[in-house]
C-alpha cells in the first residue's frame, strides 16, 4: 500500500518534469513581456510536425530532427512575435496606454491575435501531415530501473532532470549575470530600463526567441518518449504548461518546476483514485484553487509577476 503510494508519487514527479519543461517558456514570455502567448503550444506542435515530416519522409537522423525542431520553433516563434507582439509593445509614454477593463489594451490585442495564429498554425500542421498519428523519432527506453521496490523509467527520469537543469541554469543566469539583471529590470519597469540604457526591444526579442527554443526542446523531449505526435499536442503543451506556470506563479522560473511537479503528483494520484476523468478534473481543480485562494500574493510569489529567478 505504502509502496503503491510512493510509486504513484514517483510517476507523478516524472510527469511533472515534462510539465515544467513545457511551462518554462510560457512563464519566461509572460514574465519578460507581460504577454500571454496562446500560440505557444501550436508553435511547439508545428515544429514537432516538421520534425516528424523530416523523420518520416526524409529519413533524417535523430540528432538532425532534434536540431530542426528547436530551429523551427524559433522561426515559427519569430513569426508569431512579429504578428502578435511586436506591434503592441512600444511604450508611448509611461503608463499612458489605453486601458480596457482595467488591463493594458495592448495585452488584449496580443492575446486575441495569438489565439488566431494558434488556429492558423494548427491548420498548417494538419495540411502538412493529414494523418492523426504521425511517427516521431523514439528514444524511449524499454527497461525500467529498480530503485529498491520502486520502478523508474530512465527516459522519463532524463526528461525530468533536463527540466530541473534548465530551470536552475536559467534561474542562476537571471540572478547572477548582468544581462539577466537587465531582463528582470525590463520586465519590472520598462521606462526605467530605457532610462538606464538597456536595449529593451532587443532584450524582448531575445526573451521570445529563448522561450520558443525552450518550447522546441520541450517538444522533442516529450515526443521522443511517446514516439508519435498528433495535432492535439499543441493544446496539451499550452494547457499543462500554463497550469504548471500558474501554480508556480507566472513569470517565476523556479516556480515552474515546483508547479509542474505539484501538478504531476496531484494528477497521478487523482488518476489512481478516480481514473482518467479524475486526472483531467484534478488539473482544473488545481488551477481553480490557485486562482481563487489568495495564499501567495506576496511580493516575490505574486500570481502574475514580473520575470524572477
Amino acid at each position, binding site marked *: 500500500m505504502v509502496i503503491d503510494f510512493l510509486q504513484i508519487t514517483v510517476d507523478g514527479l516524472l510527469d511533472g518534469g515534462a510539465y515544467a519543461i513545457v511551462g518554462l517558456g510560457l512563464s519566461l514570455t509572460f514574465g519578460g513581456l507581460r504577454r500571454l502567448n496562446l500560440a505557444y503550444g501550436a508553435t511547439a506542435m508545428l515544429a514537432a510536425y516538421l520534425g516528424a515530416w523530416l523523420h518520416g519522409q526524409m529519413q533524417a537522423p535523430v540528432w538532425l530532427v532534434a536540431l530542426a525542431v528547436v530551429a523551427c520553433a524559433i522561426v515559427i516563434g519569430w513569426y508569431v512575435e512579429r504578428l502578435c507582439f511586436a506591434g503592441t509593445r512600444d511604450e508611448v509614454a509611461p503608463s499612458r496606454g489605453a486601458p480596457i477593463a482595467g488591463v493594458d489594451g495592448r495585452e488584449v490585442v496580443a492575446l486575441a491575435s495569438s489565439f488566431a495564429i494558434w488556429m492558423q498554425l494548427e491548420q498548417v500542421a494538419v495540411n502538412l501531415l493529414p494523418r492523426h498519428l504521425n511517427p516521431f523519432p523514439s528514444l524511449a527506453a524499454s527497461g525500467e530501473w529498480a530503485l529498491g521496490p520502486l520502478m523508474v523509467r530512465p527516459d522519463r527520469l532524463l526528461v525530468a532532470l533536463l527540466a530541473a537543469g534548465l530551470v536552475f541554469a536559467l534561474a542562476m543566469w537571471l540572478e547572477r549575470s548582468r544581462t539577466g539583471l*537587465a531582463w528582470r*529590470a525590463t520586465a*519590472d519597469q520598462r521606462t*526605467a530600463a530605457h532610462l*538606464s540604457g538597456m536595449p529593451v526591444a532587443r532584450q524582448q526579442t531575445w526573451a521570445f526567441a529563448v522561450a520558443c527554443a525552450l518550447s522546441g526542446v520541450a517538444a522533442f523531449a516529450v515526443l521522443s518518449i511517446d514516439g508519435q505526435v498528433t495535432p492535439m499536442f499543441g493544446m496539451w503543451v499550452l494547457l499543462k504548461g500554463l497550469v504548471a506556470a500558474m501554480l508556480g506563479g507566472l513569470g517565476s522560473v523556479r516556480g515552474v518546476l515546483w508547479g509542474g511537479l505539484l501538478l504531476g503528483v496531484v494528477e497521478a494520484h487523482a488518476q489512481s483514485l478516480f481514473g482518467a476523468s479524475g486526472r483531467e478534473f484534478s488539473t482544473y481543480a488545481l488551477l481553480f484553487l490557485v486562482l481563487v485562494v489568495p495564499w501567495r500574493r506576496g*511580493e*516575490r510569489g505574486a500570481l502574475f509577476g514580473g520575470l*524572477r529567478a
Partner: protein
Amino acid sequence: MLEINDLATAYGKIEALKGVSLSARAGEVTCLLGPNGAGKSTLMLSLAGILKPQRGSMKFEGEELVGKSPAQIVERGMALVPENRLVFPALTVRENLMAGAYKRRDMGGIRNDIEAMFGRFPRLKERTDQLAGTLSGGEQQMLAVARALMSRPRLLLMDEPSVGLAPLVVAEIFSIIRQLHSEGVSIFLVEQNAHMALKVAQHFYLMEQGRVSFSGNPGELADDDVIQRAYLGQKRAA
C-alpha cells in the same frame, strides 16, 4: 552644456511642446517651473530619448541628441530621474543601483560607486537587500537619484523630485541637490515646488502651455508679477 532650440513634441495630434528653447549651463542648477500640463515632463522625456520630438534640436556639449536612443543619451553623460521615481519595485536596492550602471563595464568602479551611494544615502545602505517596492516614497526618490548617478552623468535631469513627499523629506531631497551641485554636478530640475526650487537654482525658466514664457535669475525676480500670476500665487492641489 545643454542647448534646446525650437523643440516640438506631440502625443498623436496633441502638441505638448510647441517650440521650446532654453539652455542649461555647466556647473549650475537650472530650474524649469510651470503649472501642471505645461509640458515639463514631456520635455524631460524628450531629452532622455523616450519621446521623439517632431522638430527642433537639443544639443548636449555640442552634440545633437535628437534621434538618439535613450541608451546613447545615457552614454553621452545625461541621466534622468523620472517623474514618480520609477524604481524597479521587484529588484533589491543593490540591484537597482547595478541596473543604473548598466552601460558601464568597470566592475571595480561600479562597486566603489555603490559604496559611495551608500555613504551619501545611509538609509539605502540599511535596506541593501530589501525590494525597492517596499521602500517609503522618500527612500524611493533617493534610490532613483542614486540609480541615475550610477551612470556617472555630467548633467542630471530631475523631474519633480519633491512630488508627493512630506515637507521634511522634501527638505532632505533639496539638500541632496545642493550637495550634488557643490560637488560640480550640473542639474536641470523640473519642479512644482517653486519656493524650494528658486532657493537652489542659479537660473530659471517658466513654462506655460508648451512654451517658455519667462526666464531669469532667482534673486532679482522673486516678486515678479509674471511668476506671481502664473505660478506662485496658485494653491497647489492637495
